């Protein structure tokens, strides 16, 4: 089994934390991930991208049409990275949806784009927790990512109060995903 993910956002949104979460979950599943991250200059409010691959890949670099999943923490970054998806790719992007619907599905050339209104799902301004909500949704959309492993990652990576808040947001994203995506087994 092989797989690939791109996480795109801007500095301060927790792109690298999300990459580490996905990689750690894949490691728990013995799927041998490799992950890239860009630090330094690009941290200062600029675009931050992290790529994760698993299943024998040596280099984590993704090219146009390579990725199975694109997780866009910011609408504009999701749109500008859409080229990375393969022909059946799935994008999970943060957006303020029309009518504040929690989830809107767009189908474009065989690609599925789930627009997640993170503020609606959280019930308040979700800026600090977009990565956790989208990670939860990803766990619902990708059967290689058990939600229990995501909870384990969070519990072992943050202090108890932050963990509690993050797990709450993770579960909200997961529930929104389970409600919206038909069971795929």
């Amino acid at each position, binding site marked *: 089994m092989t797989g690939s993910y791109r996480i795109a956002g801007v500095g301060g949104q927790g792109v690298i934390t999300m990459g580490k979460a996905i990689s750690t979950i894949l490691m728990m599943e013995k799927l041998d*991930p490799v992950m890239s991250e860009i630090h*330094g200059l690009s941290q200062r409010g600029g675009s931050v991208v992290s790529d994760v691959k698993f299943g024998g890949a040596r*280099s984590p670099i993704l090219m146009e049409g390579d990725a199975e999943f694109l997780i866009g923490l910011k609408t504009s970054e999701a749109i500008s990275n859409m080229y990375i998806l393969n022909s059946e790719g799935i994008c999970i992007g943060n957006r303020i949806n029309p009518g504040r619907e929690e989830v809107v599905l767009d189908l474009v050339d065989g690609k599925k784009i789930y627009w997640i209104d993170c503020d609606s799902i959280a019930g308040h301004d979700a800026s600090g927790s977009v990565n956790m909500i989208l990670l939860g949704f990803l766990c619902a959309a990708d059967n290689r990512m058990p939600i229990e492993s995501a909870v384990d990652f969070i519990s072992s990576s943050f202090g108890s109060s932050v963990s509690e808040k993050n797990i709450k947001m993770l579960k909200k994203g997961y529930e929104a995903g389970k409600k919206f995506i038909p069971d795929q087994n």
Partner: protein
Amino acid sequence: MILSEEQKGEKGKKVLMLGNEAIARGLLENGNAFSATYPGTPSSEVGNMLEREGKKNGTYFQYSINEKVAYEIAYGASLSGLRSSVFMKHVGLNVASDPFVTSVYTGIGGGMIVMVADDPSMFSSQNEQDSRRYADLAHAPMIEPSTPQECKDFVRYAFEVSEKYSVPVLYRTSTRVSHMRASVELGEIRNAVRVHNDVKEMRGNTTSLPSNARRLKSELLHKMSSLGVDQDFSSLNRIEKYGNTRTGIITSGSSYNQVVDAVFSMGIDMNVLKLGLTNPIPQEITEKFLKENDQILVVEELDPYLETKIRAYRDILGNGAVIHGKLDRHMPWLYEMNPHTVRNGIRMMLGQEVEKISTPKPASRPDFCPGCPHRSSFYTIKRALKLAGKSNMVLASDIGCYSLSYYEPYSTADIMLDMGASISVGSGISIATGEKVAAFIGDSTFYHSGITALTNAVRSGANMLVFILDNSTTAMTGQEPTPENDAVVNGMEFKGISLENIIRACGVENLTIANSFNQKELMKTVMSSLKNDGVSVIVSKGECALIDRKEKAAREKYMVVTEKCSVCRNCIDNFHCPAIQQDSEGHIFIDPVQCDGCGMCSDIYVCPFKAIEVVQ
């Protein structure tokens, strides 16, 4: 030092690690005793991790004032018998190149590793130099890992080569190796190593007078020839065979990962020679590979370093494979390798049609963080220059976050070359044109290379206004301390070294300390300093927004009172804080999550309508 049971229990555990963290771990597992660095992306996390975890095996660690000093300190520790290491980015090795090149002649005591991280594609650097050239230039052994696991494991060989041949070893990575995360199997941490070495007994080597250097150069060349045929380190290199073919690829570092992925994705047969020792090129395995293949593609980032050596090797050998690479345009000279460029190189070697390569999409440009003191400084300085009719003045910037002032709307950087150059290049322009020039330099960069430049500018009679943007940290690389901070290093307490005293000691008479977050005061200071002749210095002090982030985030936030707002957009167009935005109905608002409560936007100089207030 006695290792705890918990540390012993780490052996065999698999951990997700960054390449740089794996290097630091490798140092702890191989008895490293002394480390120094000046931080620089993409090398910084090695030092960051040793600062946290060096005590696990008793490693002494320090952030030095610059790379040259870091190098010399680590060399001194090595001469004293300690296993030592120093880390820097590629341009940092330019700064440390002076001691590096000669220390390869003199030899060392305890093993010494010089880790240098290149930045192909220039993700956060001013150039794309290939530091492997330094190994050649200095006749220093060089080891290149490809993965986080190798980043850790090859440290052992680097210390062993260093001690066996008594030379510092260049440990070269690139962004994609240093900043790649993967599973690493841990080994056991080993107590810091001190070997017996008497500097007094070595003085015929360590005093690099010409009479000694002539002998040492000859010995060095001999050492490198011996290492080229040394079988003790053969496990650094290997041949991988995919299927049955007489076509091969020679590669190292990050390029190796691209090569294997490309070969798998194309489903072709290929032999791959992966070199971990890239100076000198290991003779036996290279010869064997040249003979076992008819065609060889050399895949490497930046310059044709390996290719030139392999071509020369084949030439001396007189037979063997036909070599392809950058010199015959099979591979690009620019930027990092990716699966497309590697596949195209292979296709060209096999006489197949190449695929069209898409250009990567441009990324959003970085900006000052909300609450950054530089935003306030540059906003005010730009206004002052305009008011004084000096908008045409040449503005020399330097290496650090403040170089982002190049971008609109600040546009307050015309020059940025290397660490400390704002003052020296600026003074050169001032002397050559007779005009006043402004220079902008951060506190850490000033300590690194600005002190000599400032002294020289004063002694040259330059007409300059130098801004030292003092945010109390080395911000861009990860908030490492500067000599100005009070600090505890390895249990010893140090008082910060006064920036003001240093500036005065450089011969500067007109010195003003201003607060970056007090626009009125800063404005007055700039207007008055512009009238001075000679070298004037303004220290604009304001703490980096990333220091004590939690406390800053807890401050009162600001909001726009819509009724008072004239939608003049000055706060967006000229102050340009990412927290201030305009909604689809045209109202200006402040994103409470991004706002860090610095309050600068509520200043009358940013909002003359007083429409920005504290959230009640």
